[in-house]
């Protein structure tokens, strides 16, 4: 069965909700978020620090093949209830999106199925919309670059 991710972002609101059902027991879904070596594997980022506990904090960093840092993010963990929820802040460094407050809820659906919902609250509607637009803009840039590559090879 194909499980789908939904993104709910109402026009004019400074929040968004991402939900997804998984073919995984809730314990494994939670582990994927709480354990550094697992998070590294699916997020494709280096986890410099991850303290999955109240008053804990985390820091992620991604580098390209040449070793240049291309992504850095950090935040504080306010609440961490095993197999249930994580409340944390999230901030992408050197980006205009500000700090977001994230409520992650892990829900058991059955023996081997579970659901995750991420409720993100932004400081402003503009910041939320800019973040939503990022993959879209990036997609356009990628298409442009590919086009340029092809065109330059033709010459």
């Amino acid at each position, binding site marked *: 069965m194909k*499980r*789908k*991710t*939904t*993104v709910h*972002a109402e*026009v*004019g609101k400074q929040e968004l909700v*991402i939900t*997804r059902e*998984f*073919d*995984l027991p809730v314990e*494994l*879904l939670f*582990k*994927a978020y709480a354990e550094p070596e*697992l998070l590294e*594997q*699916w*997020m*494709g980022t280096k986890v410099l620090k991850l303290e999955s506990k109240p008053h804990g904090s985390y820091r992620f960093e991604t580098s390209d093949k040449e070793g240049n840092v291309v992504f850095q993010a950090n935040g504080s963990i306010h609440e961490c209830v095993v197999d249930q929820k994580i409340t944390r802040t999230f901030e992408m460094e050197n980006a205009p999106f500000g700090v977001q407050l994230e409520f992650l809820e892990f829900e058991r659906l059955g023996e081997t199925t579970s659901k*995750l919902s991420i409720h993100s609250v932004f400081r402003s*509607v*503009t910041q939320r*919309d800019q*973040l*939503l*637009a*990022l*993959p*879209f803009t*990036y*997609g*356009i840039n990628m298409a442009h670059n590919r086009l340029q590559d092809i065109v330059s090879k033709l010459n």
Partner: protein
Amino acid sequence: MNLRRDVFQAIADPTRRAILVLLATQSMTAGAIAANFDTARPTVSKHLQILTECDLLEQEQMGREVHYHINAKKMKEIADFIEPFRNMWDDRFNDLERVMKNYKPKK
């Protein structure tokens, strides 16, 4: 592509979003729309002009009056706008599922 960006800029403004909400259920004249805001009439006209240029609003001549209404097709495009964001998360979650299905607890 520029058009797309313009649409996005158009909905980034709170007054313009309020206008879209106002017009969601009815068509209205510029005067009737302006009556809902404290902003000066020319400012509201400017907002209507931007929304019309982005094709989010359509004008319709009804006798001596011009009525504004929402272009549903264009609004749908904004909904599609977040599709790449959704795809990004879908890919990421597929990876999560794959990683965790192969996960063998140590011990």
